């Protein structure tokens, strides 16, 4: 697998002078992975791929708009590429996608790789990238049934409990904006949270302003979140951001029959409508 990635990267670099391969290499702790940018064919030897390659590299493509770039992507990351192409941020021609069939990723904590795959991987549906020029690994069938038991658990508790639960979560937010920085879908020139006039979100980190920031962030990713889970992974205070994102993911699948990033052409839900839809579920 790794050999294939290295060979493909090398072949591509030899043909594309001035190009860059974005992939993973072993981090200095000798255990986890970190992103690497390779410009010369002879350097491909440092490329790796295993269950520690948690990062979604597709956001780096935004820094290489219009430049020849090859990228190693997992299925969820690959949807980021489709999303960005759909939103006219990238053009498909300049990108060479090395898609890797994903075995599920594991995070490292306290110098040790965890036993269980990341929670997002446990409910993942797509194990083969949605877009690729070369596929590494055997295509895997999709998981047939959606698992939203995590969302359902929150839906199942009372409205007051929900209110209390999220209040407690959002109160912890220190407004570091790590979730935004890592997100492939967050590429505004200036985020609404940083705007001073009008002041959408107060500058202080307090319960009310944290509330609107977190809702605004999630809602801006509605029908756009590709489920890579990076926001939640980098959150220093452990807010279950994917739990919010996944509610929107579920609703937009139910209401609009739409899954973000599965292709680059389908009009996203907020760009279109059906005259006859009612969008009201039996309550």
């Amino acid at each position, binding site marked *: 697998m790794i050999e294939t990635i290295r060979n493909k990267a090398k072949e591509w670099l030899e043909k594309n002078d001035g190009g860059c391969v974005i992939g993973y290499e072993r981090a200095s702790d000798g255990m986890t992975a970190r992103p690497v940018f390779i410009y010369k064919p002879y350097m491909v030897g440092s490329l790796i791929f295993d269950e520690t390659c948690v990062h979604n590299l597709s956001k780096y493509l935004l820094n290489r708009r219009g430049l020849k770039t090859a990228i190693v992507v997992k299925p969820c990351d690959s949807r980021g590429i489709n999303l960005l192409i759909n939103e006219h941020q990238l053009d498909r021609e300049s990108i060479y996608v090395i898609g890797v069939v994903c075995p599920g990723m594991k995070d490292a904590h306290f110098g040790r790789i965890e036993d269980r795959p990341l929670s997002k991987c446990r409910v993942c549906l797509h194990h083969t990238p949605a877009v690729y020029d070369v596929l590494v690994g055997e295509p895997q069938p999709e998981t047939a049934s959606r698992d939203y038991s995590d969302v359902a658990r929150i839906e199942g508790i009372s409205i007051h409990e929900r209110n209390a639960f999220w209040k407690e979560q959002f109160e912890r937010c220190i407004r570091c904006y790590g979730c935004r920085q890592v997100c492939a879908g967050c590429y505004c020139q200036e985020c609404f949270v940083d705007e001073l006039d009008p002041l959408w979100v107060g500058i202080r980190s307090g319960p009310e302003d944290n509330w609107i920031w977190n809702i605004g962030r999630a809602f801006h990713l509605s029908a756009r979140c590709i489920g890579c889970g990076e926001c939640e992974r980098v959150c220093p205070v452990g807010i279950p951001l994917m739990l919010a994102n996944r509610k929107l993911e579920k609703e937009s699948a139910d209401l609009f029959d739409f899954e973000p990033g599965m292709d680059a052409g389908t009009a996203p*839900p907020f760009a279109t409508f059906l005259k006859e839809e009612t969008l009201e579920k039996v309550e």
Partner: protein
Amino acid sequence: MELTYEPRIVGFLCNWCSYAGADLAGTSRTNYPANIRIIRVPCSGRVDPLFIVKAFQLGADGVLVAGCHPGDCHYSDGNYHTRRRVGLLRPFLDYLGLDKARLRLEWVSASEGKRFSEVVSSFTDTLIKMGPRSS
């Protein structure tokens, strides 16, 4: 003295149908509770979902978004987009602990003065029954 709870409602009304419908409620002297504060927008499609979130953050007990009936939008299809935006925001806010009954999307035409007053009355009623928002 009895203390009664008076919910605060922010209403975003499209200029062509719902705002005109609210005017008609006035011209026909249809009384309704004074709890709503109306903000005129050209089209319900002008309503940024964040306006709604912002109103709730500031303390609104209910938010009403009202536009032309589907198919009647003055701008041909603005209200269809509104329907999608609010249609997604509503279950999401509910999920986050803000009861979906507090956010209403209604179609009120320029000729439906009576209906507008009914919408405001029933919405105010609902909110009074629900009581103040838990903080």
